[in-house]
C-alpha cells in the first residue's frame, strides 16, 4: 500500500491516542478526509488528571481537552461523538456505526482504549459503587466526595492510590482493600510499594491487604463491603480500581489477531495491512526491550502510537521511539517512571526514602531497564535517556550523591 492511495482515514476511539492521531495527521500534511469516532459526548480529553486534579476539583473539563472542540472543524476533522462503531467490513473497507451508517476507509486506526473491570461481586451495581475511566464517571463521584464520607477503594494500583490520596486531602475516611499482600504489586518493587504504603498510612488511609471482597452490601444504595473472612466495612462510597481490559470487541469481530490487545508490528500495523491499532487496546514490540510484545496503558504509549501512525500514513520521517514513561501524583509526591521494570533482578537506590526524594533503579544483569523516581526528576529523565539510547550506569555509581545525575549520565556507556 503506498501512501498516495490513502484519501480517507477513519479513527475509532476518540481518547488521547485517537485525538492525537487526527491532529498529527494534519500536522504531517495529510490532506484527505479524517473521521474520528468516539462513544463519549466530549471531544478528546486527557484521562490522567481524572484521578488526580480533576477529582480534587482543581481542573475543569475545558482544561482537560486536548484541543478546543472548535478546532476539529477548523482542521477538517469530522468528529463523531456519542457514536459507536459496531462492525468492520475489511473486504470492502467499511466501518458501520450504530444506526446503520457505513463509512468507507482507505486506512483505519483502532484506538478503542480499555474498559475498567467491573467488580465481579453481588451488589456491584448498587448506587454509590463507581468505576473510574471517563470524566462522566468522576463527575458522578465528585459531588459525593465530601469530608467525613466513608470511602472504600477496592484495588491498590495507581488509580486506587491516587483516588485515596485525593480523598484524604478532602477529609474523607478512606480504606483501601487489596487482594495482594502489598499495594502496587503489579507495577513496582516491594521496596517502592512499601514506601507508598507507609506514606498513605501516615496520611490516615487504612489498608486491608490480602483482603478478598465477597459482597457489596446495601439495599437501595451501598452500605458496606463484606470480606470473605467474614468481616464487614461500612461505606458511603465504593470505588473500584481493579484494572482495565482492552476494548478488542470490534477487532475480534473482524478477525484481527488479538492476544491481550490487538497485536501489531512496530509500525502499529495489525494483521490487516490497512488497519492500525494504537494506545491501550494494542500490543506492539518494544524496541527498547528486545522486541517483546507489550500492551501499555499510558499517555506515552497513546502519543507514540499516534506519532508512528501519522508518520507512516503521511510518508514522513520514521518516528524514533521514546522509552516508556509514566507518572503518578499522590499528596506532594511526584512519582515518575521510565522504562519497564518487569524481569529485573536487582534494584539499587539513590537517595533515601525518609527524605521523600529517592529513585529506584532496576537492573536486569548489567542493563538498566527502569527507574521509579519519587520527587527526583533528574534521576527520572537521566534514566529515561539512558534506556532510550541503550546505555547503562554502573550500579555502584548511583549511591554517590555528591555526583549529580547529569554527570553520571554523561559518563555512561
Amino acid at each position, binding site marked *: 500500500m503506498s501512501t498516495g492511495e490513502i484519501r480517507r482515514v477513519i479513527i475509532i476511539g476518540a481518547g488521547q491516542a485517537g485525538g492525537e492521531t487526527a491532529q498529527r495527521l494534519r500536522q504531517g500534511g495529510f490532506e484527505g478526509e479524517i473521521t474520528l469516532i468516539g462513544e463519549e459526548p466530549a471531544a478528546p480529553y486527557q484521562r490522567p*488528571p481524572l484521578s488526580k486534579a480533576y477529582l480534587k476539583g482543581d481542573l475543569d473539563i475545558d482544561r482537560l481537552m486536548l*484541543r478546543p472542540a472548535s*478546532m476539529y472543524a477548523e482542521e477538517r476533522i469530522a468528529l463523531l461523538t456519542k457514536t459507536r462503531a459496531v462492525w468492520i467490513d475489511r473486504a470492502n473497507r467499511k466501518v458501520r456505526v450504530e444506526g446503520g451508517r457505513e463509512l468507507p476507509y482507505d486506512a483505519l486506526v483502532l484506538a478503542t482504549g480499555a474498559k475498567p473491570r467491573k467488580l465481579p461481586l453481588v451488589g456491584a451495581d448498587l448506587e454509590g459503587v463507581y468505576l473510574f475511566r471517563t470524566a462522566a464517571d468522576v463527575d458522578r463521584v465528585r459531588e459525593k466526595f465530601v469530608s467525613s464520607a466513608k470511602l472504600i477503594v477496592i484495588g491498590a494500583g495507581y488509580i486506587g492510590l491516587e483516588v485515596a490520596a485525593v480523598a484524604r486531602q478532602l477529609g474523607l475516611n478512606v480504606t483501601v482493600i487489596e487482594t495482594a499482600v502489598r499495594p502496587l504489586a503489579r507495577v513496582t518493587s516491594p521496596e517502592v510499594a512499601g514506601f507508598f504504603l507507609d506514606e498513605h498510612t501516615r496520611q490516615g488511609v487504612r489498608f486491608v491487604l490480602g483482603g478478598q471482597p465477597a459482597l457489596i452490601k446495601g439495599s437501595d444504595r451501598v452500605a458496606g463491603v463484606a470480606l470473605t473472612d467474614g468481616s464487614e466495612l461500612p461505606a458511603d462510597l465504593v470505588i473500584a480500581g481493579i484494572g482495565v481490559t482492552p476494548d478488542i470487541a470490534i477487532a475480534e469481530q473482524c478477525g484481527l489477531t488479538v492476544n491481550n490487545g490487538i497485536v501489531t508490528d512496530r509500525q502499529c500495523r495489525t494483521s490487516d495491512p490497512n488497519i492500525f491499532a494504537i494506545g491501550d487496546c494494542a500490543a506492539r514490540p518494544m524496541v527498547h526491550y528486545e522486541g517483546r510484545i507489550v500492551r501499555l496503558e499510558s*499517555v506515552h504509549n497513546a502519543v507514540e502510537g499516534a506519532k508512528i501512525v501519522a508518520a507512516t500514513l503521511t510518508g514522513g520521517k520514521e518516528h*524514533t521511539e521514546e522509552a516508556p514513561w509514566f*507518572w503518578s501524583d499522590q499528596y506532594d509526591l511526584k512519582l515518575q517512571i521510565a522504562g519497564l521494570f518487569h524481569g529485573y533482578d536487582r534494584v539499587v537506590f539513590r537517595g533515601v526514602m525518609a527524605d521523600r526524594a529517592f529513585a529506584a533503579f532496576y537492573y536486569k544483569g548489567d542493563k538498566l531497564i527502569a527507574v521509579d523516581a519519587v520527587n527526583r526528576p533528574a534521576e527520572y529523565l*537521566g534514566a529515561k535517556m539512558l534506556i532510550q539510547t541503550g546505555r547503562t550506569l554502573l550500579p555502584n555509581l548511583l549511591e554517590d550523591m555528591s555526583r549529580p*545525575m547529569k554527570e553520571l549520565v554523561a559518563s555512561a556507556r
Partner: protein
Amino acid sequence: MPKITYIESNGKEHVVDAPVGQTVMEAAVKHAVPGIDADCGGACACATCHVYVDPEWLSKTGEQNSMEQSMLDFANDVEDNSRLSCQIKVSAELDGLVVRLPKSQH
C-alpha cells in the same frame, strides 16, 4: 485576555489569547502552536514544552522551580532563559509576553 506571542525556530509567529490562570503551555497547545508537544498535559513529566522567555520578560515570568530545573538539565539547547512553559502561569502582567521555541523538543 493577555496575548502571548510564540515564535517558532523558523521565525514564524503565533499570537494567542491566553486565559489568566492557565499556563503558557496550555494556551499554546489549545491553539496548536507547533513545537510545544506537552505530551504529559502539564504534569512536569515530559519536558516537551521547553521555551525561551524573551529576556525583557524574565522578571515577570519568575524563575525556574527546582523540579523544572532538574528536567531542563536534560533538555536540548538549554539557555539561561529556558523555561518549561507548563510551569509559567498566565497573569494580566504577562500580557504581551514573547517566548521562542527551540529547534527540537526531543
